[in-house]
């Protein structure tokens, strides 16, 4: 029997990251902000500080656990916004066609032409740093791929017999889009959504690294990297562990998205039974 390895590994990684984020107050050995102790600064990993300490003498492990909250909140929150925008625009454009389709396609191409990080940077500069600004900035700038996939799926799905049948059975357009078209594109949308979550976590790191994300001293994986930049030779652990956290989380999300797609596809499911 073939076990869906990607779903399993991805699921375990995501569960661990979510658990770490939720249980951070209990898991973290020290407070991530207040327990600064310059006497313990730049200590390499040992039995007391598993991941070492940073320039202020704060425990890197504790800061990573608390940072997971920011990364997940940003990843999930912004992706929910992106997916809702992308689906609403994409499905309606593909289904109705006409001038609305032209408008949405134009808007999507415009969004794709502007690098989303630059766009997010501009929004952050207007809104100022903070979690809510991050959610808005990343949630408004990364829906183009979802929209494109939703549009092209809707375009092909609306010609399917069951959509025509739904029309003759008296279904309204909104009902058709929600009950007949949306469920049949959920696979690719979920994959794009989870991949986008990885992107959002990376974007958060980049924005925080540039000083526009989460304000220090509160930890996010991005601003931990910023702080560690100057110590990269003296105390590499301060940079390596947040970097690893980003890498593993994004990898886990990608594996999970892939596995989810296989699992949600009824044809694939039938083949494995």
């Amino acid at each position: 029997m073939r076990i869906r390895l990607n779903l399993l590994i991805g699921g375990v990684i995501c569960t661990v990251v979510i658990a770490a984020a939720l249980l951070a107050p209990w898991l973290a050995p020290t407070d991530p902000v207040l327990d600064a102790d310059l006497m313990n600064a730049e200590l390499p990993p040992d039995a007391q500080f598993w991941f070492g300490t940073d320039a202020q003498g704060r425990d890197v492990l504790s800061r990573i656990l608390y940072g997971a909250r920011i990364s997940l909140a940003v990843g999930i929150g912004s992706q929910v916004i992106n997916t809702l925008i992308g689906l609403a625009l994409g499905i309606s454009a593909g289904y109705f066609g006409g001038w609305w389709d032209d408008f949405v396609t134009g808007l999507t191409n415009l969004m794709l032409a502007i690098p989303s990080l630059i766009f997010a940077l501009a929004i952050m500069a207007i809104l100022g740093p903070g979690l809510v600004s991050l959610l808005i900035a990343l949630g408004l700038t990364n829906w183009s791929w979802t929209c494109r996939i939703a549009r092209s799926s809707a375009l092909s799905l609306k010609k399917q017999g069951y959509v025509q049948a739904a029309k003759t059975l008296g279904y309204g357009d909104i009902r058709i889009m929600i009950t007949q078209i949306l469920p049949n594109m959920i696979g690719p949308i979920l994959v794009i959504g989870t991949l986008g979550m990885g992107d959002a976590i990376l974007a958060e790191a980049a924005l925080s690294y540039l000083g526009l994300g989460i304000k220090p001293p509160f930890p996010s994986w991005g601003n931990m990297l910023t702080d560690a930049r100057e110590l990269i030779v003296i105390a590499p652990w301060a940079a390596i562990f947040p970097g690893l956290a980003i890498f593993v989380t994004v990898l886990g999300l990608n594996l999970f998205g892939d596995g989810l797609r296989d699992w949600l596809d009824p044809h694939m499911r039938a083949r494995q039974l």
Partner: protein
Amino acid sequence: MSDKNEPLVRVDSLSVHFPVRNGIFGRSKRTLRAVNNLSLTLNKGECLSIVGESGCGKSTLALSILGLQEPTTGEIYFEGRSITGKARPSRLERAGMAQMVFQDPYASLNPRQTIYTSLAAPLRLHGVSDRKEIAGRIENMMQLVGLKPEQAKRFPHEFSGGQRQRIGIARALILNPKVVVLDEPVSALDVSIRAQIINLLLELKEQLDLSYIMISHDLSVVEHMSDRVAVMYFGQIVETGSWDRVFAEPQHPYTRRLIGAILDPVTELTGQGPVDTREPPEPPPGYDYYPREFGKHDVYSLPPSSQLVALRDDHSVRLIARG
């Protein structure tokens, strides 16, 4: 309630034209004339077959009758009531009039819904809220189309092509429509399954008092099912009449070619077809069938002006007045 003489469906001078844009930035505009000034009627309890090659406009005609395609000009009446134009009924109202059985049983069922959901949703939409009543009607319908009621719990991919077509028929009938449009109902099925589905459709027609409009290019299927036939060519009816009359004495050269194309073991063995398809009969005096160059006619220009001329009873053929 309706007038006795009023047919169930009456299509009156229907034309459906589509603007086609091509060239850079859609600069050159052409009009694709799918259906040209077409009239037909469907009487209660009748099976009318519309035959013709792909692209002759028969599917567009079907979509117009179902209300999925707004006509460019002309009207369609259902029991004397116009279903086109400004006063057209809503989708919900129209659902009880005509339903459709689709050609491809694989694409016509939502792969994410169980059969039960596919059948229960339209009932709920049309105000049937009692769970027991819904379950009862679905059970009844499953048995009518020759499936076991407990199979309704399954997903479409767990069924064979023939079973799926039965489900497609069940879905078309669940709202008790009066007219069912059959779009090549068996052409996607194995030859061994076709007869079963044809017989099922014929039984259901008697049992449920249905009227069929069948779209097909397969005359051997048409032969088994239809009372009347309308031969379509470039968006027009070129010959119409009761099936046995048209089959026995085809007039129009296009009809003759279609009938000549039926694969038949007798023809294959003896070289003697049911009709001689090479020589069309002399057209009635003063008329021509169509100009020689009509075979090169394209869908973007209007066909030459012509008229349906009655020959005998309801058998008529499209002719062009000479001179």
